[in-house]
């Protein structure tokens, strides 16, 4: 089995246009959640979203390139470029075919789809734009990265709602560990601020009217966010041989399905995913220093996640710092696993657990050692990052400094 190094990071979201900008905000406990533009009558029931307002597609792509790339794919490519540039990898020769790209997204390109429906059903115009299909497809970002860098190995996209990019990173990690590939670009992206999609979220009644406050007793829902994050994963020996800077290591990955209910969370499934991840990593629960929680800020998630964490970590739970960075970058859905993987890796690197902001008062049902208000310095060696999806699908990754 090969060790797997992280040699490149790329990220953009409501907190910033690159990893450095995002980390500065995560470390200082700054919010990326902003008031949403008024959609007209009737207004949304929620007025806040974590929009990547600093992301301008024309800064990164020609008009011709943009014909084929929707916002979620644009963001995937830009995050991929940052990660690859940082890694210093070039994909000449055999590395091109021994590199994978695995991305995650929940819904893919929603804007092209909505525009098509508008023409068809609202304007009674059956002539829908010819590039709707390639713009909409969930693998558009992965394929665009493949074309741009000439990466010819396994390239695919995972769509498991809010666990998508955690699953993507886990699969890429396993491929490298098992020797199928030497390197991988893995992560995910999501662009949720399309009106039809927002109306559908509104109807689910899980979006908070306020900026989300995970684990706080007065929490009443999540805050939607958009963004992308990509990691360059690399065979440890390959990375060392070329003198690459190693930002951390992936130790293990675990996944499970609740087999319970399509939206109601339960304790067993998430607990199993965490246990599998620790087993896969070959470490004991007591070795974990920090958990980047799924922590959506819904009533149900935060309570069941607390119970799951307490069941896995038993008594030493109080030594483990826990936070939900969604309080700053929102719930980026299919990108959440990747955005939070980077937050976790940087927490380890800097010895600083980012906070759960907006927190007002503890909930006795969420009795974890929560980092609230401001980041907490601590010697962090090993951390876990959780994502739990609608459909009852759970994924956990274990990282080492």
């Amino acid at each position, binding site marked *: 089995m090969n060790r797997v190094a992280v040699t490149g990071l790329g990220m953009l979201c409501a907190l910033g246009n690159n990893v450095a900008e995002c980390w500065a905000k995560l470390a200082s406990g700054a919010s990326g959640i902003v008031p949403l533009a008024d959609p007209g009558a009737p207004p949304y029931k929620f007025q806040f979203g974590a929009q990547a307002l600093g992301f301008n597609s024309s800064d990164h792509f020609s008009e011709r390139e943009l014909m084929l790339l929707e916002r979620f794919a644009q963001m995937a490519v830009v995050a991929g470029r940052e990660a690859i540039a940082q890694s210093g990898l070039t994909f000449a020769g055999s590395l091109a075919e021994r590199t994978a790209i695995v991305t995650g997204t929940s819904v893919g390109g929603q804007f092209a789809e909505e525009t098509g429906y508008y023409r068809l059903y609202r304007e009674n115009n059956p002539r829908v734009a010819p590039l709707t299909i390639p713009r909409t497809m969930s693998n558009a970002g992965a394929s665009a990265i493949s074309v741009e860098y000439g990466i010819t190995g396994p390239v695919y996209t995972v769509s498991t709602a809010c666990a998508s990019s955690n699953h993507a990173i886990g699969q890429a990690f396993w491929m490298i560990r098992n020797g199928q590939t030497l390197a991988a670009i893995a992560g995910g992206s999501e662009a949720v601020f399309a009106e039809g999609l927002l109306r559908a979220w509104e*109807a*689910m*009644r899980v979006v908070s009217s306020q900026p989300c406050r995970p684990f706080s007793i007065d929490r*009443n829902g999540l805050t939607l966010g958009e963004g992308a994050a990509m990691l360059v994963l690399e065979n440890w020996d390959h990375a060392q041989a070329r003198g690459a800077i190693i930002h951390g290591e992936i130790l293990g990955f675990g996944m499970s399905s609740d087999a319970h*209910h*399509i*939206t*109601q969370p339960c304790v067993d499934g998430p607990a199993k995913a965490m246990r599998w991840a620790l087993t896969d990593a070959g470490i004991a629960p007591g070795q974990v220093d920090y958990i980047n929680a799924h922590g959506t800020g819904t*009533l149900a998630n935060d309570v069941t996640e607390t119970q799951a964490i307490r069941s896995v970590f038993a008594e030493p739970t109080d030594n483990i710092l826990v936070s939900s960075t969604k309080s700053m970058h929102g719930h980026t859905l299919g990108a959440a696993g990747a955005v939070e993987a980077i937050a976790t890796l940087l927490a380890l690197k800097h010895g600083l657990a980012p906070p759960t902001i907006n927190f007002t008062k503890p909930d006795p049902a969420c009795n974890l050692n929560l980092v609230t208000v401001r980041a907490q310095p601590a010697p962090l060696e090993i951390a876990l990052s959780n994502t739990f999806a609608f459909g009852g699908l759970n994924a956990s990754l274990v990282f080492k400094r």
Partner: protein
Amino acid sequence: MPTEPATDDLARNDLAQKVIRIIAEKQRIPLDTVALDSTFEELKIDSLDGINIIFAVEEQFDISVPDEGVHTIRSVRDMVDGVRSLIEAKAASSAAKPE
């Protein structure tokens, strides 16, 4: 006057019947299994079913149920009472508007 309360009772009954019909239709269960005193738990109505039923109720009565309703409505009677108060609030606010 004795006729007043009787009409009121009829209206109450009618509203309850409409809500019960919506619940039965949305849950795909026989109408006679839903009573005013049924709890959502007895009818196996979970939170996802709940938002689906509330959506249908909003459409039928042209009202808007706040998100908190999903967590506070636990029985057919809760829902009928909630719908009635929202309808009354709507009537009061439109009566207050100058024409």
